[in-house]
């Protein structure tokens, strides 16, 4: 059992409330996964900015002082790249006006042991072990603005309770994936991806799903096609939510044991494991509420 709550805000006037709305949803899915949690927020001022790449690194302490990290990264980049480092809760955000690949290179050279948990122009990813509401509070979710938000509370089954094993898994620019369930053939799929040259950060089954989606997208699939292909290759139980810079997708496996419920209004699309996480959203009484059908990919774009 894990909990998922995701929110895509269609009405920009709701953007300032993104964090408080997501926080109220997260609060209702804590029971489903109290051991660790993760958040992904899109276009949040103060965390990411347009024209700048941002990497989210696991942990507040990268083993060297923040100033040294900033200087180290800056020294490896052009002088106008304006490298900056910010520590938010248990997460270190490194940003610079360069492509993400170059920034990854600069960060891993400066801190060889760094675990990159998020990357892109639009997304910041934060995760940690502990009570999900404490994880959210430590990172200041309540006050965050943004266009999309994704949260996950984990009840670990396939791999250890670690921050690195928490969801979301963000393995390509602005791409995040969270999972309720378990993939049974992840080792086989992992071996196939390893042969393609894909590098993994953890032993987690969900990371395999995220790497698979990223691999399909790289090969030219649309998000919907990538998830249809995932259904053909990965076996197991799953409700997945995948977000990109401007879209959100939900898919359940054909057996559909893992729950999902969606509320859609002109102002937002919200998805959660249980209705009670949606109950406090504005205008919920007039929302279109439905359970996604088994094996069907749903996508919404901003």
């Amino acid at each position: 059992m894990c909990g998922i709550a995701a929110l895509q805000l269609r009405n920009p006037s709701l953007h300032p409330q993104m964090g408080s709305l997501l926080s109220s949803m997260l609060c209702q899915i804590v029971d489903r996964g109290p051991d660790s949690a993760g958040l992904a927020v899109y276009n949040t001022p103060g965390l990411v900015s347009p024209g700048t790449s941002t990497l989210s690194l696991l942990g507040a302490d990268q083993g060297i002082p923040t100033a040294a990290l900033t200087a180290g990264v800056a020294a490896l980049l052009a002088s106008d790249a304006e490298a900056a480092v910010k520590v938010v809760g248990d997460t270190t955000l490194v940003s610079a006006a360069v492509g993400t690949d170059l920034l990854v290179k600069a960060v891993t050279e400066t801190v060889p042991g760094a675990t990159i948990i998020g990357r892109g122009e639009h997304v910041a990813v934060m995760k940690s072990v502990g009570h999900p509401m404490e994880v959210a509070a430590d990172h200041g979710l309540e006050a965050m603005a943004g266009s999309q938000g994704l949260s996950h509370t984990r009840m670990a089954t396939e791999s250890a309770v670690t921050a690195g094993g928490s969801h979301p898994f963000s393995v390509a620019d602005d791409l995040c994936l969270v999972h309720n369930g378990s993939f049974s053939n992840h080792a086989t799929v992992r071996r196939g991806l390893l042969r393609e040259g894909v590098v993994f950060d953890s032993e987690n089954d969900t990371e395999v799903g995220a790497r698979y989606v990223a691999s399909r997208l790289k090969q030219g699939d649309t998000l919907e096609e990538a998830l249809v292909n995932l259904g053909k290759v990965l076996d197991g139980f799953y409700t997945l939510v995948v977000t990109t810079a401007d879209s959100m997708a939900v898919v359940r496996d054909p057996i559909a044991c893992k729950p999902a419920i969606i509320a859609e209004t002109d102002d937002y699309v919200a998805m959660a494991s249980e209705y009670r996480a949606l109950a406090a959203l504005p205008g919920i009484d007039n929302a279109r509420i439905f359970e996604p059908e088994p094996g069907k990919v749903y996508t919404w774009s901003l």
Partner: protein
Amino acid sequence: MVTLTAPETAAPEAAAPAESDGGAAPTVVDLADAPARSLNQALHDAVDGQSWTITSPGGKHSLAVGISARVAVTIEGHAGYYAAGMHQKGDVTINGNAGVGLAENIMSGRVHVTGDASQSAAATGHGGLVVIDGNAGARCGISMKGVDIVVGGNIGHMSAFMAQAGRLVVCGDAGGALGDSIYEARIYVKGTVASLGADCIEKPLREEHLAELAELLEAAGRTDNPADFKRYGSARNLYHFHVDNSSAY
């Protein structure tokens, strides 16, 4: 504690003695602050003839579970998992949707959902009537043992799996593997069936079936024509083990 507010009369305590039968204003319980457990305790202590209205359910789980008196309970809004589970004798109406496991193991009485119900509605039900005006998810009536279920919309896959007794009426379409490994329950579907499960077959709709279907539709407050339905049930090839069928298990 439950917030009990009854119009006109003083609010009774959760374990209050019986009120007069019928005609009394319903006891209103607002769940905005009250836990489901206190509500359920109050309903367990209720006696025949009382009526209750539950407001602000907010999708909370296990609402109105374990009722065993002839009480009428109306939930104004969406309920979470296992609403009206282990239900006996009473009448529960949910003016909204219900989550996983609605009326699970219902023994008697009636449970009515005006919206949709999630998966495993009326699972293992022994008796009583469950009415879902909207759609029901997967595994509706799984292992039903005597309950009657009327669904106004569609039902999901693996419904009536290992159904032993009772009737399942579907006014919309049925998902895949309907009635897999069914025993003696009877299934009536008005729309299409995506696929029938192992040992489930279409059967002739005789007079006695039209009559019971008419009764069930009427009990559910529906006006569908019984003649528009098809009946499905067990081919009775699987429920006694025969070695020639071993590949079908």
